């Protein structure tokens, strides 16, 4: 599988906006939501496949509610990412498992063309596996950083990543 090294841009989130939003200024908070939304949306869509908009909304609500507890406005990006991944995994786990990929392929509701259908492969993984893959391959984090962000051992990150990439490679070659 081709590894993506171009990390997803968070967009321009300036510290003054974070400070204003942290103080509860609605206009600053509205700007912050707009700035961080594309990034949170990509995290949530890749982890909470069945309910991406719900996951995104809940992640952003957790971010705006938790903002007063953020001590250092400069650390907003890392903190927002952690919250978004946590909420996306929570929303994805809440949903009952959907039918298997094979059934969906047979039913013809999956569009597989020459390129790999990322969504199909992601759907075959558990939410926590998707979270590892998103942070490592979509966001460009090191395995060490991913382990810290998700609060799991580095060995677990390595094994989940291995399985996730193998799933991609299998689908790609198949």
């Amino acid at each position, binding site marked *: 599988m081709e590894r993506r090294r171009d990390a997803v841009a968070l967009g321009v989130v300036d510290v003054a906006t974070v400070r204003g939003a942290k103080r509860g200024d*609605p206009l600053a908070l509205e700007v912050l*939501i707009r700035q961080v939304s594309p990034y949170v*949306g990509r995290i949530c*869509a890749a982890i909470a496949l069945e309910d991406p*908009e719900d996951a*995104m909304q809940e992640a952003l609500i957790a971010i705006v509610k938790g903002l007063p507890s953020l001590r250092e406005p400069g650390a907003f990006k890392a903190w927002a990412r952690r919250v978004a991944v946590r909420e996306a995994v929570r929303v994805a786990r809440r949903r009952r498992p959907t039918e298997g990929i094979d059934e969906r392929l047979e039913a013809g509701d999956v569009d597989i063309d020459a390129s790999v259908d990322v969504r199909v492969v992601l759907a075959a993984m558990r939410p926590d596996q998707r979270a590892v893959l998103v942070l490592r391959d979509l966001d460009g984090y090191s395995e060490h950083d991913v382990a810290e962000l998700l609060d799991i051992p580095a060995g677990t990150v390595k094994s989940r990543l291995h399985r996730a990439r193998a799933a991609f490679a299998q689908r790609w070659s198949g």
Partner: protein
Amino acid sequence: MTWPDAELDAIRRLRVLASAYPSAGCAEVTLGVPFDDAWPWLMDLERNVPRWDTLVRRLRLRRLPEGEFHMWVWVRWWPIPWPFRVRIEPGFCIMQGRGRAFLVLMAAVPDGLGRTRYAHAEAVPVRRLRFLRRPFQRMVDADLAQLRVVIQDRS
């Protein structure tokens, strides 16, 4: 390969922003007119807000640079107008009263079959004052009930 993506529509954006303020009263309603008709009507603030907002007697707007407006609002029980800063974009409007005294959020999205889903929130934009949520909620509920009737009967 393309990764999945998600977007926050205007109504979800309103819900997210309102969630920051415990005093916020929020409500949503389906309007029986298309978005392209409903949103310009809703954003004709001076003419139409006093017709459905139970608190507002009169509004005056002045355009500022960068798409913002300065707005004066006369409420029914107070003779002096209150100044607001207003930002409007398609489907979303935020109005913040001077001194963080009041916040109004308006959002709308097309709801298929010629209808519009409209959401409205009002709050005191500070991170406390939860006890104000109930009166705000009653006020917003009454406003949206009135809006639904007025926008349908406006012709």
